[in-house]
């Protein structure tokens, strides 16, 4: 086979291979979403983050509005600081739970005050058990005394 035919086929092969890689990156993976768009950063403190990981999607009303950028531990408050990159096209009120629509939106560098920790089943059960034990204590102690 002459050289130009080989070159042609190798070219086709390389193009097909790169197309396969692009297909994997764009169609199968999530490179296209939120990689090029502008984001602003907000921070939130959590008492417990459970199984939260970097790059986890942040959803509002079920729609992905951003991604977790960083998770750190705060040495002063003993809480987890989660940095979130939120897409610029989504604006959220500064105090979402108390007053909706007072016009003050979260901006770059703001901190979310009201957070809800991850629900850890073991903690719930242990809290329940300790409460039960505390309720039962006086009655249990009296016969002992």
């Amino acid at each position, binding site marked *: 086979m002459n*050289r130009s035919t*080989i*070159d042609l*086929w*190798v070219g*086709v*092969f*390389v193009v*097909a*291979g*790169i*197309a*396969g*890689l692009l*297909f*994997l*990156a764009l*169609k*199968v*993976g*999530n*490179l296209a*979403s939120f990689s090029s768009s502008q984001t602003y950063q907000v921070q939130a403190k959590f008492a417990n983050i459970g199984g939260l*990981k*970097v*790059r986890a*999607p942040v959803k509002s009303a079920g729609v*992905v509005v951003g991604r977790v950028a960083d*998770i750190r531990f705060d040495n002063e408050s003993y809480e987890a600081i989660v940095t979130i990159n939120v897409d610029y096209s989504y604006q959220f009120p500064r105090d979402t739970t108390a007053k909706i629509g007072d016009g003050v939106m979260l901006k770059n560098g703001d901190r979310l005050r009201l957070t809800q920790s991850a629900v850890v089943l073991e903690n719930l059960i242990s809290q329940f058990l300790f409460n039960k034990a505390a309720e039962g204590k006086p009655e249990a102690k009296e016969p002992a005394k």
Partner: protein
Amino acid sequence: MRVADVRARLERLGSGVTFHVLRLGFASRFLAYLVLHSGTALRRFHLTIAEIYFAGVLSLIIILVSGMFVGMVLALQGYETLQRFGASESLGVLVALSLVRELGPVVAGLLFASRAGSAITAEIGLMKATEQLSAMEMMAVDPVARVVAPRFWGGVLSMPLLAALFSAMGIFGGYVVGVQLIGVDAGAFWSQMQAAVDVRNDILNGVIKSVVFGIAVTWIAVFEGYDAPPTAEGVSRATTRTVVTSSLAILALDFVLTALMFTGGNHQ
């Protein structure tokens, strides 16, 4: 009698171990020499292109067809299990993650070893047996630079592309069976897949795996060919050894790479 027997066995074991360690040392030296002398293969790039044609383009059919079938089987089997838990919408995630992380690089590597690796060994071994390599040396042409290096780089460059095509084809096969045949919702199939597959964690690691497998397979193939005893039997044994050794190398390396990539990184 018995002491002599045990002693003879120990000696055989020791010589076997020494032989393999020696061969590994020679193979490493050969790889270093090969990489240092691959200037010709990269300067006269058409030599490498001819080998990409030989190792990559001619392996396309087997890679594409088997990728398609692997994806289709994954979709059938995965649907069977997932629908028991009412999670048949996650079929795309299952198919894509298994292909991109594991099956794409590994199965493409195994096919590549048996399709292209064995052919490289047989070709170099036969060149050695018919004294073509010695003839080159007589003409002051380095056979490693002229014959071995282009085959090495051709294999190394082809393998990631073949693995990517295998995964892409497998996902297409999974789509055909899962969505067209079984009737999983197409939107859920793609969107759940896109939400779960991470470009850096999954796809890039799969590509790294396929590059490593490509280097391992082609290295073993060119070394076995170059080291083959110059007889018909020697070449046939070297070809068999290429397929066996590179398959084992792929599976062992896959375990090591998976342990490095997917268990360490996920506990952040």
